[in-house]
């Protein structure tokens, strides 16, 4: 295993641990304000503050906020990526299994999605309906469903012609059984690899929406939302931008690097390629 992949895995473990237990690192709550301690520079860098990563404009401890932000970002990333993977893969499998009009309808849906970047769709829907966490999660989850649908459809179409499928069919297995028990496990590698490509995109969409002030809403917080609050104070409170930004970047980077490595391991013929 290459060194960068090892480092990425270590970072991912640390990130998950920080998201789960980070709030225990600090005596302050993430919504606990302290008017006397507004915008204190990080104590870790010798400012003399008792807050190791500093405070925001309401004197809230950045360690606590980053921990909760990491939790929310991680939850949205994992749940959102799963939503897209399940919907997209199911549609791809159905398209390949049914062919005909069903396939044409699904692939037209893919075309429509390709004509509208997901962030535009998300902004449009968020303006129409009252923002709620579930709606946000669902919209973010739609990221890249069309990629799964296309890849799984192609993989299923080629798997259908394999000898083992013909054998099952001759033996009298039902179509449902053939697709779920035999073809799905065989195209699973494709789904898994796409999962690691899609997860950074999901993270970037959530943090971008929250950064724009249209994603996760206060009093809840996410890494992007912390950056959104830090944006107007970029020059005098850099820590509000730099720490959450680095966390998002390193998270997306680690997942990408592990994903690339995984792809090479699972399919040597794809070495060095990336399906964007």
């Amino acid at each position, binding site marked *: 295993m290459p060194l960068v992949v090892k480092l990425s895995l270590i970072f991912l473990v640390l990130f998950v641990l920080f998201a789960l237990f980070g709030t225990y690192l600090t005596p302050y709550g993430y919504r606990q304000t302290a008017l006397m301690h507004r915008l204190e520079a990080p104590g870790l860098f010798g400012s003399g503050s008792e807050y190791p990563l500093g405070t925001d404009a309401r004197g809230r401890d950045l360690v606590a906020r980053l921990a909760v932000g990491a939790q929310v970002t991680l939850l949205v990333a994992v749940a959102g990526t799963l939503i897209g993977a399940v919907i997209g893969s199911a549609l791809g499998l159905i398209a390949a299994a049914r062919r005909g009009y069903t396939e044409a309808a699904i692939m*037209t849906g893919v*075309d*429509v999605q*390709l*004509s*509208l*970047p*997901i*962030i*535009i769709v998300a*902004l*449009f*829907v*968020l*303006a*129409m*309906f009252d923002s709620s966490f579930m709606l946000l999660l669902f919209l973010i989850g739609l990221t890249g469903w069309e990629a799964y649908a296309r890849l799984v459809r192609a993989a299923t179409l080629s798997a259908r012609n394999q000898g083992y499928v013909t054998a099952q069919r001759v033996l009298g297995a039902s179509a449902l059984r053939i697709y779920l028990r035999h073809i799905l496990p065989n195209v699973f590698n494709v789904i898994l690899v796409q999962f690691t490509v899609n997860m*950074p995109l999901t993270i*970037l969409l959530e*943090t*971008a929406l929250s*950064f*724009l*002030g*249209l994603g996760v809403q206060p009093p809840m917080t996410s890494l*992007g939302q912390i*950056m959104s609050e830090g*944006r107007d104070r*970029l*020059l005098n409170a*850099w820590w509000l*931008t730099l720490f959450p*930004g680095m966390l*998002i*970047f390193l998270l*997306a*980077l680690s*997942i*990408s*690097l592990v994903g*690339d490595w995984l792809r090479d391991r699972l399919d040597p013929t794809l070495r*060095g*390629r*990336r399906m*964007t």
Partner: protein
Amino acid sequence: MARIVTLKILRAVITLLIAVSLVFFFIRLSGDPALALAPPDAPPAVVEEYRTRLGLDQPLLTQYLRYIGGMFQGDFGYSIHTGRSAQSLFFERLPATLLLGLTALAIALGLGVTLGLIAALRHNSIIDRFVMGFSVFAFAMPNFFFGLLVVLSGALFFGVFFGGSGATRSFGQLLAPAATLGLAAMGSFARFTRSSLLETLNKPFMTALAVRGVPPRRRLLRHAIPNAAIPVVTMLGLSLGGIVAGAVVTEQVFSWPGIGRLLIRSVETRDIAVLQFIVLMVALTMTVTNLLVDLVYVILDPRMRGGQNG
């Protein structure tokens, strides 16, 4: 070939029609479209007129046909915010966004393809590793974070601040947001060009050319690069989507007075008419681009002309 082209155009039209229909149904689902589309401070009689004109008492199908008809007459409704028509607000902002987006695309394409070519020609060298590392970095870097870092270092080290209208900006004030916007696409172009060229160089016809005594430079320029360019063309369509999406965030970070900021403001103020027009224009741009990419692909790749379904 004419059949493929017709089919592709037909598909683009259907795609666009569905996008328009989705926008229509979403607006109908969300509340009273008459209030949303009528000019602000309109007296109840005018809102009522809109209601009749939109035919909200009519069956949904009639409403839908009228909606499509209104578009052909250039009626896209008025901004609640400013009272001006949606398209006038849009076209006022368009030049700024085009300037930013096209500069970003030029940077991404120029630098990305060059880096990819060098990496492929120096396969497994330090340069190759650097380019691959850069492309992963560009993929994982959130453009708003990168943009903020650029703004921060600009203010701290160069005394450059980003703000004001597009016309008064210096070249550096254009280049910084354009590079930020183009970063992700640059990474994918580099990576894609590299793998495409590597793949082509390993094809049997390259060996055949070498055996026939074709000089290396000619093999590369006349045979390898044109063949490797075909898949890179398809990347153009995909990267345009990334640039449209990225522009929303980048414009916000650099206070760039373009459509991205208009979009965000429209979402915040629920300015439905403006929002609708922006979504429709994005769908139109993307569909036309995807169609053009498809057609260029047909022209570039002789195998596609045979009548296979595409």
